[in-house]
């Protein structure tokens, strides 16, 4: 039994090798080089097609936001470009698809995109519909204050009871900040949307705004020099992953390998510094990929 399986594997291996060799000679379909990938793999198919369809945010400053020319820019976009490059696909052949939070799984399920890199938090409900490579970034709850405020340095600054903080009604961040407050009635302000928190911060009605750092980076990007993030860094963890179609394990593990490679060779850091790093100088610690 054992012998037969080995034999089968060997046969497949030889076949694959010969097939690859043959493919390399007459590869002129796409501009990608399919020969470096195993025959029949997702990567080979993408390289062969020469086009990568990427779902990303079009409205998230620092991660994925379209510029005036209609081209998205940001950290997620840079990661997508690295993946495309490794597949042998040029930047012009990346097809950008807007992926708002509500439709990300659907875009993959309907095969409208090949990957989704859109501030996409990995969780178990989503894993039932799509598969994730990564995480490539650890987002988390952070605190934003006016640029000249040095009194608030982290969530512990609220324990003394003198500083006020704003978040959104019914949000997870609003629950997670409560344990740090000495007196909720005097310190916590909740509105329906974050822009009102930002208005209250500017008006001096509250001392800080708290939610996911990525959202806060957006506000900092909109009005450079007005706000800043506090020193302590994030105090919760939300792993951002790269969504691929359910069952494409070859593609997923190839992306994981690639992520580990770019963590090492500096491309990850460079991508951060070009984009979100402009608003958050703290270089994120690359999270270990999860090969589940």
């Amino acid at each position, binding site marked *: 039994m054992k012998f037969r399986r080995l034999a089968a594997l060997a046969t497949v291996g030889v076949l694959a090798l010969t097939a690859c060799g043959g493919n390399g000679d007459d590869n002129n379909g796409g501009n990608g080089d399919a020969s470096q990938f195993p025959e029949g793999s997702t990567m080979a198919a993408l390289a062969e097609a020469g086009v990568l369809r990427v779902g990303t945010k079009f409205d998230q400053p620092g991660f994925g936001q379209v510029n005036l020319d209609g081209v998205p820019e940001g950290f997620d976009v840079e990661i997508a470009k690295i993946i495309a490059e490794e597949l042998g696909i040029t930047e012009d052949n990346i097809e950008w698809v807007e992926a708002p939070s509500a439709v990300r799984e659907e875009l993959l399920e309907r095969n409208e995109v090949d990957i989704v890199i859109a501030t996409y938090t990995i969780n178990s409900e989503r894993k039932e519909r799509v598969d994730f490579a990564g995480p490539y970034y650890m987002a988390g709850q952070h605190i934003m204050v006016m640029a000249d405020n040095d009194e608030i340095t982290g969530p512990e600054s609220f324990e003394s009871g003198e500083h*006020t903080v704003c978040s959104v*009604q*019914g*949000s*997870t961040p*609003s*629950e997670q900040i409560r344990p740090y407050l000495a007196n*909720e*009635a*005097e310190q*916590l*302000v*909740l*509105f*329906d949307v974050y822009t*009102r928190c930002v*208005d*209250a911060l500017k*008006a001096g*009605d*509250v001392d800080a705004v708290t939610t996911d750092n990525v959202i806060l980076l957006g506000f900092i990007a909109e009005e450079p020099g007005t706000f800043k993030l506090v020193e302590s860094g994030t105090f919760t963890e939300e792993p951002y992953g790269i969504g691929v179609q359910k069952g494409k394990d070859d593609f997923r593990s190839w992306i994981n390998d690639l992520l580990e490679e770019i963590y090492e060779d500096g491309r990850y850091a460079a991508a951060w510094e070009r984009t979100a790093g402009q608003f958050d100088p703290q270089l994120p610690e690359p999270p270990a990929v999860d090969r589940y």
Partner: protein
Amino acid sequence: MRAIVDNLDLFASGFLLTFQLCLLAAVGSLLLGTVAAVLRISPLPPLRWVGTAYVTVFRNVPLTVVAFMVVFGLPHLGIRADFLRIPGLDVIFPRLGIELPYFRMAIFALALYTGAFVCEALRSGINAVPAGQAEAARALGLTFTQNLRYVVLPQAWKAAVVPLGSVIIAMIKNSAIFGFMGLTGDLSATYQQLISARGEPAIPVFLAVTVGFLIMTVPLGLLLDQIEKRRAVGR
């Protein structure tokens, strides 16, 4: 049911805050409305204009707009409703005295809006007092103020009390929007916290919040029925 029992303390504190807001706003709107009604029937035209302008503006502008202007607009003009930090009163209503202005702003906005309706309810009561009463009082040599104080308003109050009650019931329900304007922890905001952030089932939470409002409105309605009955006997 478990969602209600487990979070009973949250519902109770939410109810208490909403109740405080309604109580203070009711007092404020009754005061404001009475002043406006007196202005509207005063013999001096400029005072009448002021009263009419107030009622026209605040009765016709949607509550949401009034609330927005007060809660988000006034702080930019440096007004944080500090006049409501009444010494002594903030012992009973601790939120009145804190630095954050949103509780005071909510009272101010709600009283401002409801005052216009109170004014008109009172005026309808005043109109119900036969003209002969005021004329007789004037013939007796009572001044305008004395006339109102001893003859017209006491009778007007009786005719106005039921429509006034309806205005206050409407106000209690209107108070729900301030949970979304910075007033942390009121009854209407409690449902958001429980459903969205803590993932409690929606229906029981909605029911509990609704019951919280009914505890305030239903007894008030019954009281009004009672007053109406007693008045019918008195006639």
